[in-house]
């Protein structure tokens, strides 16, 4: 409800501004008498018919809470959303995508809920933002978490089982939470990143991302492999 009130007050504000502008224009009219001023004023009036905000419409993003947003698993294994939008109308989305604003530092906060990008329409716009996933009930959080787990696929490395370097490329094999993998790093110093909280993020040549939650907790052999890069 509070959002609706805000929108109303915003609309009133813009009306007020327009009224002010008109009043000023009238003052100017009185001052300016020559033809040039008249021409200019005509142009101004011409422009006033078009509101630039309406030329390129953008959806207004709203805070999403259990009171105005209902997430559900879609028939296609993705997420559907029913939402009461800024105008207080109910809207349904067959599919929404959820992006983390801070995937590294705050994975469960500031979740951006968006229309999917399409080839025809381009980038989808933001429907709203979930300030903190904790405000939703368990079932909803589980649905959203399942989607996030798909979208941010970062298996944890448990053990580096083999490491070979050849011509500057690192060929590693590791046991991860998603199974045993072998992967290649072309620039280990750039692709192995130490995060602020001490975790280690590894991006390989294939587009994989791996996480090491605590490098010190690894076994000695594994630690020795990554030690020099961090």
């Amino acid at each position, binding site marked *: 409800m509070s959002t609706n009130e805000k929108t109303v007050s915003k609309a009133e504000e813009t009306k007020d501004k327009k009224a002010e502008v008109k009043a000023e224009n009238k003052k100017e009219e009185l001052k300016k008498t020559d033809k040039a001023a008249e021409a200019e004023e005509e142009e101004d009036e011409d422009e006033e018919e078009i509101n*630039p905000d309406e030329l390129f419409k953008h959806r207004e993003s709203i805070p999403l809470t259990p009171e105005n947003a209902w997430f559900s698993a879609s028939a296609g294994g993705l997420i559907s959303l029913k939402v009461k939008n800024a105008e207080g109308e109910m809207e349904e989305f067959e599919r929404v995508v959820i992006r983390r604003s801070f995937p590294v530092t705050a994975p469960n906060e500031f979740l951006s809920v968006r229309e999917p990008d399409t080839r025809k329409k381009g980038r989808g716009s933001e429907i709203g933002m979930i300030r903190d996933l904790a405000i939703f009930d368990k079932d909803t959080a589980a649905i959203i978490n399942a989607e996030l787990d798909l979208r941010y696929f970062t*298996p944890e490395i448990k053990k580096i089982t083999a490491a070979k370097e050849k*011509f500057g490329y690192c060929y590693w094999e590791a046991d991860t939470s998603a*199974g045993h993998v072998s992967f290649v790093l072309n620039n280990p110093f750039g692709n192995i990143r130490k995060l602020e909280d001490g975790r280690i993020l590894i991006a390989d*040549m294939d587009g994989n991302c791996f996480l090491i939650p605590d490098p010190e907790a690894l076994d000695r052999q594994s630690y020795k492999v990554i030690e020099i890069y961090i």
Partner: protein
Amino acid sequence: MKLMYDLPQADKAAYDAAAAGEKMMYCVPFNMYEDRFVAGWTVVTDKHIYCILDGKILTATDLSRCTVFSTEVLYGNCAFYASIDGITTLICRFLSGRNLSRYSVLVNACESLAEKLRNKEDPGEPVTNDERERFCPKCGRPFVAGTTVCPFCRDTKEVYKKLWALTKGLRLMLFFPLFVSFFTLAIQFILPAIQKVAVNDYLTNKSIYREDISLADPNLQAFLLIFVAIISIDLFQRAIGVLQSRLSAISGNKFTLMMRTLLYEKIQTLSIASISKKSTGDLMGRITGDVGVVQGFMTGQLPSLFSMAASFVLALVFLLILDPVMSLFVFVPLPLVVYLVYRFWDIMQRRNRKGWVLGYHVNLFLQDILNGIRVVKTFGNEEREIEKFNARTNRSARQNESNAKLYDTVFPLLSFVVRFGSYLILFYGNYKLFTGTMNYGDLHQFNSYANIIYGPLITITFIPRQVSAFLTSLGKVLEILEEEPEVADIGLPIDIAIEGDVSVKNVTFGYDSYNPVLQNINLEVKKGEMIGIVGHSGCGKTTLINLLMRLYDVNEGEICIDDVNIKDISQNALRSQIGVVLQETHLFSGSIRDNIKYAKPLASDEEVVAAAKMANAHDFIVNLPEGYNTMVGEKGYSLSGGERQRVAIARALIHNPRILILDEATAALDTETEKLIQDALNKLSKNRTTFAIAHRLSTLRNADRLIVLDKGHMVECGTHQELLDLKGFYWKLVMAQRQGSGFKKKKEAAPAAK
């Protein structure tokens, strides 16, 4: 690119059972299922899409119910979706680097298949794609970007062969030091033998000592001869050493010069696409650092490695011949010593690398902050930056301190261990001396050979690392040399004199083939026309002109100039007849005159002045203290954005190009200067085809035609008036800009009214 993989047996059986009578069109892998990595298969037939995993059909999707297909790049994986009865459904997930291009082809292929199925048409043959496979067919690991080289499978022998080929013409010079080092080696072994004679026969031989010794004494003569021999051998050895060093200095420099030239030439011929994927620092590192490592190894470490190895083996043999029992004292501690030395260097190497990384981070930090010192100051963050720097530099200092402490403690101990063999020899040798089974000379000779073994022990343990560093650097150098330019001239390119007709036919292009930036662009431009290109940022305007200049090759369709496909025109001929002014202007270090003449090195000063005048740059240049000779560039006189822009325009105009490309060329200028330049450009563009991109639409008011791009498609094309009447996309842009400027006007007017 492979779109039809062979199914493994179990999966094939499952497929055969489920899809009897269907025609397999595509079969590509998928890599993730739920929360784990898998080796699954997506099979598209003429009726269904099957996902097969571990001999089971996971899903079977009826193609006729599908409409839109799409891929999405997620984090650490990608997804393939189909819209089934209007409901977006996840089909499978896969790795971006491996399969994104494959699935992008599938998106279009499946859409057309589904369409045909609904219309009951024949599905036709599967589409093929000639994009180069980026994975090694042998091991499946990725190739080096832009090549078909798999570093993992690559035979080291082949790399040496390539290097051998590179040394052509320098071989004699490179290998002469090697021969010389064998020569010094021989002397190294002769010297102890002579010394032995001197010690045994003369120094310790009391029977030849006499009070009344004269030069006529044969003993003294023989001794003097030996004495002279020792001195001259030593001198000779040093002379050869000088010769060897001089030769390796010459050959080393020649080799470096040759490698650098080769690399630089190669980098110049590579396409923008592949260069922009590498950082400047990385390329510089390869030209300077890696070439240095390769050269150092070839001319420094390799010869010494050879002579060390040879002397090691020889010394062993000599020791065994001289005294097999005493040799044991040399051999027994050897493995332990080698092991200890190796372990020590292993630990030191790791610690040093850590120290190096920390130091490197301090450097990066400094570079970053010093470049942005204005920002630091304007936000008043000096204190915080000082703290951050201290933290980093402290860490680096602590690491270096601990490294140095360890080294200084362990190294002397290690040297002692290394010398321990000599002590054993001394002990046993003296025992033999006392018992009279050995004389001084033999002991001396033996000890000398033992030192030959222990001497290089510390350095010899470096060798594996040096070889690995050398191979890494060599690999990096070869990577560039082996890269095949993506945009290359055809066998016999045409040098044409361009008139200026340009036609763009059905052009589709993306920097990554799976992500088209421009789609199906068609455009016919007559000689002398001025075309304005308009659209939101990111809609493909700059990409279109990149294609016109052939900085990239189109994926589909063709671009012709004067009815000749630009792929058939030599890149030199093409670009020398196109003048380009970009928004970001780079002026090279040198004078303004040099910079203007860059496009036409033989231009006369008249031409320089004329071009500058056309670009409205003459006035400000003449007012500079050194006029046209003012130095600009990184360390030169700092020109304002507008001034640099005008110099760049003069540079583009000096060779009188038939086609002129202006990419936001006047965006950095104030309205008045822009107008002046616009007028100049209008005059200039009379007889030449001009493509101009501008966000400020007023800049394009003189354009003959405007094309409007939106999300990679050409949505509108026509004159300013035509497009306004259309009340479409362009009209919206114009209105939005007018509104914007109108709003400003009112804002300025408001305080005046008070």
